[in-house]
């Protein structure tokens, strides 16, 4: 019983601390988890009629690691192998921005960009379309 309470409280502690964001001017209102996975693996690059451009944080960034675990459900080696295979087909991995600040700036200025950040970094010019 105690174990269950600890697990429940821990899940509350880390629940939805991160968000997937786009610019406020983008028409997209929300995305589903499997859509997000397809977008960041570049299996899909439209949401409805809107072209989207996924943006990652650097590989060692904690937010990215959380995103890969929650949304992609792949470990780093699986992801690396996936992109090596895509390289043969001429498909490049998502853009990378060096920090959450840089990613936010990119999303505000690049039409269709979609990325993820810590929840506390949201501002009025961004729209949250998924929480994890």
């Amino acid at each position, binding site marked *: 019983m105690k174990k269950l309470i600890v697990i429940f409280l821990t899940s509350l502690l880390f629940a939805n601390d991160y968000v997937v964001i786009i610019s406020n001017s983008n028409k997209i209102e929300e995305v589903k988890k499997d859509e997000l996975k397809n977008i960041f693996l570049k299996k899909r*690059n*439209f949401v409805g009629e809107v*072209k989207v451009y996924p943006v990652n944080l650097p590989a060692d960034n904690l937010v990215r690691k959380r995103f890969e675990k929650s949304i992609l459900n792949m470990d780093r080696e699986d992801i*690396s192998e996936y992109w*090596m295979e895509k*390289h*043969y*087909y*001429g498909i*490049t991995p998502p853009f990378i921005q060096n920090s959450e600040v840089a990613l936010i700036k990119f999303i505000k200025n690049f039409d269709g960009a979609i990325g993820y950040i810590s929840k506390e970094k949201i501002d009025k010019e961004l729209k949250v379309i998924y929480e994890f």
Partner: protein
Amino acid sequence: MRFITLLLLLINFLNAYDLGKGLELTKYLKVGGYTSFEYEKSKYENEIEIEDIALILYSEYLNFSYLVEFESSDFAKYNFMKHESELNEEFHIERAYIDYQFSQKFKVRVGKFITPIGYWNLTPVNVLRDSLLNPIYSDRIFPKYVTGAKVYGYLGNYEYSLFNQNKNAIDKEYLNISVDKYYGLSIKREFENFGFDISIGEFRELSESESHYLSLSLKYQTKKWQHLFEYAIAEDEWVEERAIKYAFYLQSRYRVDRKNYITLRYEHFDNREFNEKDDIVFLGYNHRIKYPISLKFELVNELNSNESRFTTSLSVLF
């Protein structure tokens, strides 16, 4: 001083370069490639060769993308039985196309590209495949490449490809079947562990025979196992003759761990009009030293003639 500068440049390059992922030279040009070293021993062959050397150039920008691949096949070989060596320094165009994406439902590709059929045909390079040796299914029923145009995309969860060729190929070298007319349709659906593909097509060989085919592919995959079944049947027509042929293979691949895989495959081919029949059993071991470096050992037995051959290969994606 100059030497130190060059050394620093080389170190910077090596730090920036990640094997298997290519190198971005400019915003509009990424470079990569692959190579494969192979050895075969059988009753009739005892040969070592650099089978493939290829250079891939590509990029994406907004809704456009392009890819060009130059390959030299049988680049260099040495035959131990005849004590002869050969060198082929010619490079040919393996793929060359431009894509434009209008929407998720509609994308256009123009140029020379891999025929969108099934699973095996989509991965024609040793380093990414489960085996050096191709199943007969992929060599004798349909052309592996198209020179023309393709429209493709997703209709819901179904991926479709509709392609057409109306003239000779861009660079006929390395084609399994040379055609001047080819069109087809494939529909693919992927679930979490399971996928299937149905393809139909018709083509005219330069020898002026016409063929039409139907292909069915099934894949089941878990973390440890992958099972593949692909079947294709074709009817070939000449002026006064016709022949039906079919081929299939059933393959199971077991992932021992991230670096080690064991593959078992049974293949069958039948063309009764020409009294051709093949039954082949394949056993292979693939060791990925790193993911883009694959070391394979393979044993093939042709059941009808009871002949065996052993091959080993080292292939690299860069």
